[in-house]
């Protein structure tokens, strides 16, 4: 067989170097070719990650036993020998950017699996890679503002199940302090962003905008390089399919946190619409989560220095001391129920009465407030006793005006009785307010949450004091309320108007532990009517105008583009089959009862829509088994399109 020259570019020789020429015959297999090239470069290094890339055909030559002939490679082919893993900048849901080694030769689905394995994210099938939005807006000094990049390129994972340390951190993060810091960043929600950061980010204003996002998903069945992604490019890692399988806080520290971050940004950037009440609850939860993640001692830091017994013992001792003090505290709160009695002013708004506060001696008893003419008479029958169980408590406070009122709506047989209690100062107010709140939930002052409730109220009062104009990110206790709500509410409310509203929502969540708070946030997010709908602009067969197709985890929704009304929904479980005509880029779906729909895609390629629907169907096939192996083959079959077969 005749030998011919094959020209191969080798990156390691430098960008200027001419392509190497190796003499080959057509029956030489790829492995042999690589060997020849490597010999010719005379560079000694580990070449095991390298593979041949055929540029004209945009194809990897990954089967070493195939011959050149089988690949139909002739002398005109221009190949390059290049590593399969290259550094990639990956934008995470929490807004940070990681630099890591990603596989450029395997289908994106597997690349994502690799990345998720590295980051300790379970269920990688729910995530995918998204091209970032092109920043074409006036190129102001964006470049100057270099993003913070966490470098994980040095990190290598062992194949097989990731071994985790006792604190849930996978082994491979324990390499160095830097990587540990990265893991902390991954697994702990970030502090609230400065309000201006939120305002500066692009927000979708219409269905059209929301549909545009989904045109940027990468094709899961093709490799990064095939899709034109270059080394050091930036891609976004996002949860793509909104059905989060088997979310378990025990194993899913990173997953839960990143999911929360994605949800938080979806809310802040008005990607998912919610009502004002819902926004306040989201804000309260964000505040709470931020606060708890800052204060709670994170179990994330491993103790590599633990090898000698002394330090271990020391550690133990400290722990015991801490525990002791906790019990001591407990004992205190338990045995000495805080008493609460004082002179306060009361006012009951009634028709035809002049507004006037009268002073009485007030005493808190279990869940009731009693008041007396004076302290001296407090042993006699009270003038009135009000049971606060089930009542509504609202603040009526102005720090600037030194007005500290508690508005109580106390239910009675005849209706709700409105009562205002006026306190003299912040301290008094926060104690009475906390007591009222607990009582409304049927708890007494003896409840352990009393003191933390008092503190919460005080820190909220402090929030009111801080200058609302200052754009500061969340620090210890102080936080800008604008950081917690979407820009729409920046315009609608002044900061001091927002504070009491968030505080009101906050009282319902203030006692949640971190994980529960995260889960609650996700639950409310998932409960929103618009949750989990991915929009695509499509044109239905036989229609002249563009419409929107919403794809969710259980149904397809046809939506009017201009009004946003739902026209029709089809559920997957009534779906009989779907076909893609790749030539005319049209999808045809048949449902039970001879319902047929067909549409072509406008904003995204047909492949993306097809993959979305197939992906959701794949997600539905997953079982609850823990040890289930990801059925990649099925995924590719459901989402792949013609070239995947």
């Amino acid at each position: 067989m005749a030998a011919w020259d094959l020209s191969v570019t080798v990156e390691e020789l430098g960008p200027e170097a001419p392509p190497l020429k190796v003499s080959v015959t057509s029956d030489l297999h790829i492995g042999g070719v690589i060997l020849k090239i490597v010999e010719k470069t005379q560079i000694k290094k580990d070449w095991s990650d390298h593979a041949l890339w055929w540029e004209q055909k945009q194809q990897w030559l990954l089967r070493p036993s195939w011959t050149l002939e089988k690949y139909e490679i002739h002398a005109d082919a221009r190949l390059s020998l290049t590593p399969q893993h290259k550094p990639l900048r990956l934008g995470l849901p929490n807004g940070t950017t990681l630099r890591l080694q990603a596989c450029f030769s395997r289908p994106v689905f597997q690349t994502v699996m690799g990345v998720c394995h590295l980051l300790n994210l379970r269920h990688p099938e729910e995530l995918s890679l998204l091209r970032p939005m092109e920043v074409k807006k006036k190129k102001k000094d964006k470049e100057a503002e270099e993003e913070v990049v966490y470098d994980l390129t040095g990190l290598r994972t062992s194949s097989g199940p990731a071994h985790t340390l006792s604190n849930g951190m996978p082994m491979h993060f324990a390499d160095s302090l830097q990587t540990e810091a990265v893991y902390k960043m991954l697994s702990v929600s970030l502090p609230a962003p400065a309000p201006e950061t939120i305002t500066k980010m692009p927000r979708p204003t219409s269905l059209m905008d929301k549909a545009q996002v989904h045109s940027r998903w990468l094709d899961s069945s093709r490799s990064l390089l095939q899709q034109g992604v270059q080394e050091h490019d930036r891609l976004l890692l996002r949860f793509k399919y909104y059905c989060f399988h088997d979310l378990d806080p025990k194993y899913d520290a990173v997953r839960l946190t990143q999911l929360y971050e994605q949800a938080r940004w979806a809310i802040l950037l008005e990607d998912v619409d919610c009502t004002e009440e819902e926004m306040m609850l989201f804000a309260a939860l964000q505040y709470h989560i931020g606060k708890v993640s800052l204060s709670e001692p994170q179990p994330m830091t491993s103790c590599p220095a633990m090898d000698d017994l002394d330090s271990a013992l020391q550690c133990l001792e400290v722990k015991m001391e801490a525990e002791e003090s906790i019990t001591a505290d407990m004992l205190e709160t338990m045995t000495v129920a805080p008493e609460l009695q004082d002179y306060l002013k009361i006012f009951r708004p009634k028709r035809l009465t002049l507004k006037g506060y009268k002073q009485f001696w007030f005493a808190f008893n279990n869940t009731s407030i009693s008041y007396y003419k004076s302290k001296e008479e407090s042993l006699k029958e009270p003038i009135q006793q009000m049971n606060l169980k089930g009542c509504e408590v609202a603040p009526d406070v102005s720090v600037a005006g030194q007005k500290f009122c508690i508005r109580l709506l106390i239910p009675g047989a005849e209706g709700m009785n409105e009562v205002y209690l006026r306190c003299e100062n912040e301290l008094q107010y926060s104690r009475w307010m906390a007591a009222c709140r607990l009582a409304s939930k049927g708890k007494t002052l003896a409840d352990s949450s009393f003191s933390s409730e008092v503190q919460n109220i005080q820190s909220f009062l402090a929030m009111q004091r801080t200058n609302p104009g200052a754009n500061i990110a969340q620090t210890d206790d102080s936080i800008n309320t604008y950081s917690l709500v979407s820009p729409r509410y920046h315009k609608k409310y002044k900061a001091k108007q927002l504070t009491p509203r968030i505080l009101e929502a906050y009282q319902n969540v203030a006692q949640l532990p971190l994980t529960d708070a995260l889960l609650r946030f996700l639950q409310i997010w998932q409960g929103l009517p618009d949750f989990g709908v991915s929009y695509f602009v499509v044109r239905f067969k036989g229609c002249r105008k563009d419409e929107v197709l919403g794809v969710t985890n259980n149904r397809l929704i046809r939506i009017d583009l201009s009004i946003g009304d739902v026209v029709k929904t089809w559920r997957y479980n009534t779906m009989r089959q779907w076909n893609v005509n790749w030539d005319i880029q049209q999808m045809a779906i048949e449902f039970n009862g001879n319902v047929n729909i067909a549409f072509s895609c406008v904003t995204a390629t047909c492949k993306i829509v097809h993959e979305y629907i197939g992906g959701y169907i794949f997600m539905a096939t997953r079982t609850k088994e823990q040890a289930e192996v990801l059925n990649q083959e099925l995924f590719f079959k459901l989402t792949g399109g013609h070239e995947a077969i």
Partner: protein
Amino acid sequence: MDDIDAMFSDLLGEMDLLTQSLGVETLPPEPPSSSSKENNFSMGFADMNVESLNELEENDLDALMADLMADLNDTEEKLAAELGGQKEAEAPHPDLPPASHGLSFYPESSLSTPTSPERGPNTFSAPLADSPAPILSPPTLPQHAKLSMEEIEAQMKADKIKLALEKLKEAKVKKLVVKVVMHDGSSKTLMVDERQTVRDVLDNLFEKTHCDCNVDWSLSETNPELQLERGFEDHENLVDPLSAWTRDSENKVLFQERPDKYEVFKNPQNFYLWKKDKKTIKDMKDRDKELLVEENFCGTSIIVPDLEGVLYLREDGKKSWKQRLFLLRASGIYYVPKGKSKTSRDLVCFVQFDNVNVYYGKEFKNKYKAPTDFCFVLKHPQIQKESQYIKYLCCDDAWTMNLWVTGIRIAKYGKSLYENYKTSMKKAAITTAWTNRTAGTTSIPSTPSPTTKAKASGQANGHAPQPPAEPVAKVGNAPPPPPPMLPTQILPPPPPDPVLPPPPPPQATKKSPPATSVPRQLPSLPTSFPPLPTSMANLPPPPPSLSQDDSSESPPDFLPPPPPTLGFGPGAGSLPPPPPVSFLPPPPPDPAPPPRQSNIGAGAPPPPPPPPSASAGLQSTPSVRRTGPPPPKRTTPPLAAPGGGDFMSELAKAMAKKRGNQ
């Protein structure tokens, strides 16, 4: 002082051991003896406004008495058990306050002390006699503890004090005497303890009536003044809402079938696909319904049906009804303000569900000039009279009203609703199994008789509620004496053997936290004894008592079952967990049951065959729910571009696997 402390801690340790031996570690611990006494002591006071006992008829009183006795006896038993095991749980209590400084804040502690004297009149339970004796023993131990590590002891003491406080807190349990109006208009009087859920009370009623125990049975409250009605949810505490009633309230508690209670789980499509055309809804296949329930109730968050529609709202103050476009979301009901779109950001919150309940309005057309009679109301449960804080809404038809009320319940109660339904289903499945089984057998035990008695009695009438201690005395000079006495005579057997009684309580507590429900059944048997023979002849259906057995609450009552299982090998093999549990109790038979058993035997042969039938019933019911193997989500793209020929089969396999695993 030190001694007292030590004694106290020692005592608490003992109590701990005891409660553990009772098998109540994780669940709401059975209150220690002192507390259960306290129950008895306080019960009946709070109820005056709920139900004036003066209206109780004598028969009712009998039943009530039996209940009371049950509680007492139960207490005694427990007390006996504890005392027998450890020699003094009670006596040191008077010393509690000095031991821990904080205790004086708890009225309960001071309340619990008097319990010991209270014991006097009740001494019919034998073991009690031992109680005073052991007081001497504790002081000996303290020294040991004292000598060694003081710190640890202090710590332990702290823990124990905490424990004691918790227990004391629990001791203050409120009880109500509630008259429940049955579906046939008769009424029945029950005692309900603060911790009992509606589910517990329903179970209790199932035992006392001959109803079929299907999932639709519910308790509801009516408010004639406001013309409102609301079905209680099974997980709610019954006492809470009743406590809101006013003294002169004409409100009633009804025991009736309400098909709307769990309609959403039977026909989820009516709620979640209400926008679809009627035909698709009607033709919905069972497995599609299952899928819908699964989608909306089994995920990480509960999905609330997205309702929207024009409803009439009664304007505050004004007497007119105005139309508005309302939307239901998980966070509340919203309306679309004039000239705004119905996008989320423009919605105005009408009401959130934290503090309100949803009620059906009756005949509002007359009362409030509503456009239709299909009205529902949102109000704080405390509000009992007309008020501007009540929100009245009116729908075009019953269907819409049902949709909204159910939607609101889903939004308000979320997952609990589904849990309740599953529990009800289990209950119903077991019971039907029992009924089928026993329908042939002639008769049974004794429980039916009180039922009939009570039913026949119709209205109530009687005496003011009394502290439990009193009943005994009263009983003496009233006609009912025999019943109360009987139980005491029959019951003692268990207490004497301190080792035996413990087993049943744990069983019961595990199944149904409120322990009080347990005792009630025990005495119900004996009480009814005298009249039994006559009433039984024409009362074939024994299901209630059987169901009671099913619930595994009072194992000793029906000990005979074991043999049957043998005959039904296969069925038994597939028995789901519940029945076995109920039959496990048999072990304790030895001392306690024999007497009763013999009595029962006299009335009618014990029903041995139940278990198999239960399994049969269980099998059948689950099969309805669990089968439907063909995966609903199956898409069959035989021509699908992506797939090859075997692709479908693979998908089917995956789905089947998934199904199989669920």
